[in-house]
């Protein structure tokens, strides 16, 4: 039998792969068809994208006052010293 439809396990793998590599067009189509019918795999795909965006987030929002704090002068000097000492 010709393998014409992905099951959830295959779709999950391919969805992940599609985030790291270019997939052939027929695989992309098979994924799309499956995602149209399967809310769980759809959620899975969205959640993987959320993971990607969440770890790439650079900082909390600019207007967010928390957490407050800055390096004390002493700490700053300590770190500079460590940096100096490790310079070749």
């Amino acid at each position, binding site marked *: 039998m010709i393998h014409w439809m992905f099951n959830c396990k295959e779709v999950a793998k391919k969805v992940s792969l599609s985030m790291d590599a270019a997939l052939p067009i027929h695989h992309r189509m098979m994924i799309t068809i499956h995602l149209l019918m399967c809310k769980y795999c759809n959620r899975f795909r969205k959640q993987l994208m959320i993971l990607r965006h969440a770890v790439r987030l650079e900082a909390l929002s600019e207007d967010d006052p928390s957490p407050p704090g800055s390096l004390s002068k002493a*700490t700053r000097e300590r770190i500079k010293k*460590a940096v100096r000492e490790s310079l070749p």
Partner: protein
Amino acid sequence: MSKNPSEMKAQIDNPENWVDEYGDFLYRYALARVKDPSIAEDLVQETFLAALKARRNFEGRSTARTWLIAILKHKIVDYIRKKVREQTSDKVESIFDAAAIDSGDTGFNGSGHWNNPPGKWAVNPTKLYEQKEFIDILYHCLGELPERQAKAFMMREIDGLSTDEICKALGISTTNSWVIVYRARILLRQCLEIKWLGTENYTAFKK
């Protein structure tokens, strides 16, 4: 405003200035994740030292700030991993232990259906920065991942490295890299669902 390459190079060549320019930003970022000021300070120092070692790799691909924060994120996860290991050695097993042993099984039954279908996540992807708890748990889960999986995942998603670069860094094949990153995603997703949605919700979704 973006800085031109020569300005960036001048910055990189003068590491002590990094501390003045990026120290507070890195410190606040670390503090938000690890909560402990002295640990946050240590992580900032480690970040600068690691950046110094690797500064030849920094070729103005990103801004210095982005580059430093990426290094810091690795340090934070390393710290959490160490802490998790200390806690789990005499307490409960990591939720990944079973999964790590049976790494061929990634949560599907014999006919390829989900054993535990993904639950609904009440998180707004455009407002992730507001979801502090979510980000906290995400970092914790990264710390719980098997080290190689966490590394590969972070190289891909935080550092934005290509599969080729990841393979070179970890000494693995292309296919291997895809599989490792896939497993990392599966386990991370699972960990977040358990720890963030809460066990009750999770059980409800099993039905």
